[in-house]
């Protein structure tokens, strides 16, 4: 009888190991989550939503819940290199109400670990508001041009790379920051309000 028990025990452990390994990528059984919108819902059964889609559809909902200070703090923590979203959310000292609202947003994601499963780089892209996260760098532009020129059997003329880098640097100088955009909007709104009042 003891041998039978040992056999059952070993068998159960082997079966459970197989179940665990397959469950890592499997969908949660019986999960009933409302989808954010039809776009995200459609992707549940196909490909996971891209960072850009998540950023445009989920991030605004998160930002609506957080105060501007908390949003900035969250962005700063992510940019510092913190990869654990638990620690990131803990660092911004959320109220109970905010936690419940955030939990609802997280529940509505197509997969329950959509955010947690992002790579550190994807997390940075998702939470950072700065355009640079999506803007190609001078190096990446040069690389792409070189690759396409190579395919055509030609090479990039000398000095072109330097010109691209210089132009990009100039463009960065004139690129408005979120703060300056915010200030300009506020100033515009104030002017409109003053004009209306008069």
């Amino acid at each position, binding site marked *: *009888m*003891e*041998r039978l*028990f*040992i056999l*059952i*025990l070993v068998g*159960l*452990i082997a079966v*459970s190991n197989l*179940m*665990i390994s397959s*469950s*890592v990528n499997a969908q*949660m059984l019986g999960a009933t989550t409302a989808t954010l919108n039809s776009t995200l819902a459609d992707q549940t059964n196909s490909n996971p939503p891209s960072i850009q889609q998540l950023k445009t559809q989920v991030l605004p909902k998160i930002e609506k819940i957080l105060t501007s200070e908390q949003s900035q703090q969250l962005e700063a923590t992510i940019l510092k290199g913190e990869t*654990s*979203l*638990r620690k990131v*959310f803990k660092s911004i000292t*959320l109220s*109970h109400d905010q*936690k*419940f609202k*955030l*939990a609802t947003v*997280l*529940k509505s994601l197509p997969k*329950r*670990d959509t*955010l*947690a*499963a992002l790579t550190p780089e994807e997390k940075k892209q998702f939470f950072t508001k700065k355009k640079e996260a999506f803007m190609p760098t001078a190096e990446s532009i040069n690389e792409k041009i070189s690759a396409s020129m190579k395919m055509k059997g030609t090479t990039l003329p000398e000095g072109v790379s330097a010109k691209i880098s210089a132009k990009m640097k100039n463009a960065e100088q004139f690129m408005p920051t979120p703060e300056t955009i915010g200030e300009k909007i506020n100033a515009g709104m104030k002017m409109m309000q003053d004009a209306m009042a008069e």
Partner: protein
Amino acid sequence: MTVVSDKGSNFSLSEFLISDGAAGFILSWVAGFVDTSAFIILFGIFTAHVTGNIALAGASFVSSDEGSTVTRLLMLPTFMVTVALTSLLARYARQKQWSVFAVLLTAEAIALVVFLIIGTTLSPALLLDVQEEYILPIAMAGVVAMAIQNALMKESHGVFKSYIPTTVMTGNTTQLTIDLVKVLSFKLSRSPSEASQQEAAEALERMGRFVPVIAGFALGGAAAAVFILMSETWWSLILPLMAITILAIAAYVQHGRSSAVA
């Protein structure tokens, strides 16, 4: 201790593993690991030290967190129902003349497998302490495993010299401190009586059984903290599962041997 090795006989690993010191150390290491890792990942919930959840429920109630209060309070009936079922299983095993210790260790191993599956599946989505839909099932699975271990210590008559809890260390630390005082009093006494000598000898013997249990729990907790610091995933639960499985196999082997001798 039921398993007593004859002097001069060959070393038996299974016999050693289910001896008071080794089994106590392994079981308390498992409890320390499970309790600490669950406490960290589940935002403060006890799976081994279940009554601690009463205090946590009180704290949640004061901060008007109904969901958290209910989750913590639900750990108590879960624990009691599991202990009742484990006790029935122990009675059945005893009736069938199986090794109660081995059977209950098997039950704990199965419960740890379930805990591992639920924990690794749901914990990645657990980012906030209000996500009770994830906290509750994971915590219940952990409490079931630890309730079996609690019942196992009481039901496995004859395996251990005396009952030493492996899931809560408060009583053990109290006893260890009292014994330490007894031994030191005897050592420092200028004219020790025969009674105090006897008392000190008993205390020293008890300390030999309590120290591995307390050390095991502390090391288990430390190991869990290190593993979770390295990675927030809960795959590290495979370690307590392996420990209990090895102990269960040792218990079956040892029972088989003693049955063959009888």
